[in-house]
């Protein structure tokens, strides 16, 4: 049952401090939403967790991950700092779907998703039957099986996003970080993607952290929500406790109506207008 624990995490871009000592713990089977305005440090938090930014201070640690992520068996502590893993080990634990990414060459969708298998499959068994089936299952899960043979240069923004998610799933991660995954997706696919998140989390052995601007989706699909402002976490708790009319007014400067909806079986957020003052 994997756990991710961030303690007193600080990060500065040059002299400009971005994160001022964050503490978060995320547990197995959780979908956690990270909310906040532009520049509040959401993406930076993800980049510190996956160590794209290496000069962060404080600790990002994982516990209770499965032993097969290690290159070679070794003594483990209860909480393993994420920086103590090799690149291949880390990529078996954490998968990230970045906000912006592109391939410079016209690879096929199939080849692109197969790249997610890099740390799991050796170069020789990369194209064997079993591996191919695994890649196809990732394509199936994200609903992109139909364009498996197309070139990624021919895809729309939304299709490309689903390819990147399939690639992340191919890593068989225990921590899945999604940076605005619903951006560029049409409404139907936005909900499909969130359903997918719920589905993989329900299987267990994985936790999902989603940076999003979509309060509606966060309220409906996230177990827990973190709200960030100016590099600090100002709220952390169950979605229905954190996403309130007051919080939306205070953090986003928007007047809204938040109510329980029986048909959804969750909170519904209705944005009214900006608050002028």
């Amino acid at each position, binding site marked *: 049952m994997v756990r991710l624990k961030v303690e007193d995490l600080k990060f500065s871009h040059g002299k400009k401090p971005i994160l001022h000592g964050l503490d978060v713990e995320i547990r197995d089977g959780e979908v956690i939403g990270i909310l906040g305005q532009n520049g509040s440090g959401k993406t930076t938090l993800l980049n510190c967790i996956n160590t794209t*930014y290496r000069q962060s201070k404080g600790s990002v640690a994982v516990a209770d991950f499965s032993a097969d992520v290690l290159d070679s068996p070794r003594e483990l502590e209860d909480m393993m700092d994420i920086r103590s893993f090799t690149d291949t080990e880390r990529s078996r634990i954490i998968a990230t779907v970045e906000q912006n990414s592109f391939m*410079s*060459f016209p*690879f096929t969708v199939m080849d692109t998703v197969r790249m997610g298998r890099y740390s799991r499959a050796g170069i020789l068994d*990369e194209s064997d039957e079993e591996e191919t089936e695994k890649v196809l299952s990732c394509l*199936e899960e994200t609903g992109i099986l139909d364009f498996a*043979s197309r070139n990624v240069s021919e895809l729309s923004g939304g299709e490309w996003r689903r390819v990147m998610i399939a690639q992340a799933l191919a890593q068989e991660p225990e921590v899945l970080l999604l940076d605005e995954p619903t951006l560029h997706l049409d409404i139907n696919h936005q909900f499909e993607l969130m359903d997918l998140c719920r589905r993989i989390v329900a299987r267990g052995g994985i936790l999902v952290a989603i940076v999003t601007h979509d309060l509606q989706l966060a309220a409906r699909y996230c177990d827990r929500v973190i709200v960030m402002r100016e590099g600090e976490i100002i709220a952390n708790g169950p979605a229905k406790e954190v996403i309130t009319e007051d919080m939306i007014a205070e953090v986003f400067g928007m007047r809204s109506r938040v109510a329980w909806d029986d048909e959804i079986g969750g909170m519904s957020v209705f944005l009214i207008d900006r608050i002028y003052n």
Partner: protein
Amino acid sequence: MGNDVASARESAKTEETRRRRRARVILAALLASVVLVYLVCVSLGSSQIPLGRVWDAILGNPYIWSDDLIVNTLRGPRVLAAAIIGAALSLGGMAMQALFRNPMASPSVLGISSGSSFGAAFYIAIGAGIWLSSWGTVICSFACALAVLLLVYMLAYSKHGGTQTTVLLLAGMAVSALFSGLTSMIEFFSDADTVQSIVFWMLGSFDGMSWNDDLTMLVPVIAGSILICLNLRELNLLTAGEAKARNLGVNVPRVRLMLLIGSALLVAGTVAFCGVIGFVGLIIPHAFRSIVGPEHKRLAPICILGGAIFLMIIDTFARSALPPYELPVGTVTSVIGAPFFLWILRSRKNMLWRT
């Protein structure tokens, strides 16, 4: 619904098998032609020898003694040199285009060629007076090429964004210009004979290559090829950017170093022997990528063979088009290569690069 999924899975698999089989057919065809083209290129030239007699001479019982001289001493090693150099330059170009995520990346754009030239000119004009060795040009040219590539890469590298394409090209152009300027300065201060040797070297020629040269050249070429071929999967991932490749599990600093050293070995190791030969490293990878796709495990062997065939043909053309003159091979690659590349660019643009 379940049937649809099953059939979609099947068709995805069939399509992939078809793609792989196509690459294999092309590879087999190239493998056969590389031998055939070698024989034909040895047979063609100012004095033509029929293929059958070429074969006899290679097996050691020449029809007349001059066949032995031409096939085994003059043309044989030269055509082999063209093949090795063509293979090395196109594999090096392929690796650099993926590493730098840039379609324009090639030894000349990144300044390796002008670094090599500077090293060779420096040795011919100054170094030979200090330390005379038949290896002098090779070593000097090689060292400068590596230094220039690292300089360009470091200039283009920023802590957070990885390598930035625009900065890379600008840095490459600037450093290239710097070393061309330094080379010109060396020429300016040298006497006429030295200048002629330098210019001759820079135009590129396979004239006078011996079996011994071929063997020596194979050392850096094989070492460089191994360094690159150990990282073919990593090249695929690097085309998504260094940060993304790292998130997918690539040890980026190690792979990058191996690729840089590998490319430098390939390019500098061959250029040191034959001078600057432009365009091969740019057009061959693009041409074959547009046919078999960018998957580097499939592309690399095809690039190696395709580059070898291309340069053997170009060299044969260069030495037999206008007898008794011999055209500098470096100029022919550009004159023939550029229109060919433009044709690919116009007709298959979407297969070349993300548009």
